[in-house]
């Protein structure tokens, strides 16, 4: 493998670890159980909510939707469970992404006065419609441009980070190039 190929692979890997969310949108769910209702918030990686996404709620051991609806402007919806068990929820934004989450409802949920509990889960979004996904990729990229890992890191640290990466790559290329040179010299000798 030539140095050039190695460098290109390195660049691609590096780019991927910064932008993995663009390739497979992770959908996060934040569920809050607070009798008598369960509130679910659906959002992309960090902040962008799934606005006006189709929601289907399935009661435990049921294939028919218990309730259907849409998320609000903040990606939030709520429902009132009637029985204990695992309630399955499917959120589909109809722009090419969907995610599933299940909420387990135990017996003491229905007992009055129980304190609410919050739980956060992350589901890797499945791509339901590749064409729509491609069409809307630009929109999501805009929404998620703000959510790269490095946003919260101070500028000075980012500068040092970038410089050390550049020096590191330079050193790697330098080392392998020198080794090549030495090998060819040895072969000649």
């Amino acid at each position, binding site marked *: 493998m030539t140095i050039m190929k190695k460098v290109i692979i390195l660049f691609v890997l590096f*780019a991927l670890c910064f932008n993995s969310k663009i390739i497979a949108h992770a959908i996060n769910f934040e569920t809050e159980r607070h009798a008598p209702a369960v509130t679910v918030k659906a959002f992309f990686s960090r902040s962008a909510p799934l606005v006006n996404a189709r929601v289907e709620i399935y009661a435990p051991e049921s294939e028919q939707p218990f309730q259907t609806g849409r998320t609000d402007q903040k990606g939030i919806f709520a429902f009132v469970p009637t029985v204990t068990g695992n309630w399955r929820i499917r959120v589909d934004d109809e722009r090419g992404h969907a995610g599933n989450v299940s909420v387990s409802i135990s017996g003491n949920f229905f007992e009055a006065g129980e304190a609410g509990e919050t739980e956060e889960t992350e589901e890797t979004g499945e791509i339901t419609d590749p064409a729509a996904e491609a069409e809307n990729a630009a929109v999501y990229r805009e929404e998620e441009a703000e959510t790269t890992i490095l946003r919260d890191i101070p500028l000075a640290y980012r500068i040092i980070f*970038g*410089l050390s990466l*550049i020096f590191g790559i*330079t050193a790697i*290329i330098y080392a392998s190039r020198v080794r090549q040179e030495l090998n060819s010299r040895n072969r000649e000798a």
Partner: protein
Amino acid sequence: MHISDGILDTGIVMAANVVSVGVIYLTGRNVKPEEIPKIGMTGAALFVASLIHFPMAGTSLHLGLFGIAGIILGKRAFPAIFTAILFQALIFQHGGLVTVGINSLNMGAGAYAAWLIWRTEALPEYLRSALAGFVGIIIPALLMSLEFQLSGYGRGIFYLFSIYIFAALIEGAVSFSAVRFFRKVKPELLI
């Protein structure tokens, strides 16, 4: 100067990415080991240079140092510029990630033009160095205006171009003093 994602025509941008990978191969081929640290150092300087901002006519301009990169590295400037722009896009969100190709081609063209001017032995050195710095900004700005025009944007971009003339003048002064400094301190850096 750095074009963001989703502004230019996708076809142009993707073609530029493919072309720039090819150009990296062509310009980085058969690189001598002793050249590599120089390329890395210049890349690092380019990477940081864009953070030096100065206000100008309602917008802000920043240094590019493409002229100096061309003077020091010649055709090897392209890999350094590509690396610097890629990391600026990744770490500073400065310019788009998909547009790294077209941005580095624009600025690489500036560096190459600067190198061509630098090699013109007929001119005195101070003039060559200042001109190289000037061209290092003006060529990318010209290309950028052209690309915006091709993607169907109006003439407002030519207003932006007129601002870049000031940036290019500043860059010319920087490049002039940098070359004087190198000539005094480390003349072997100047090819």
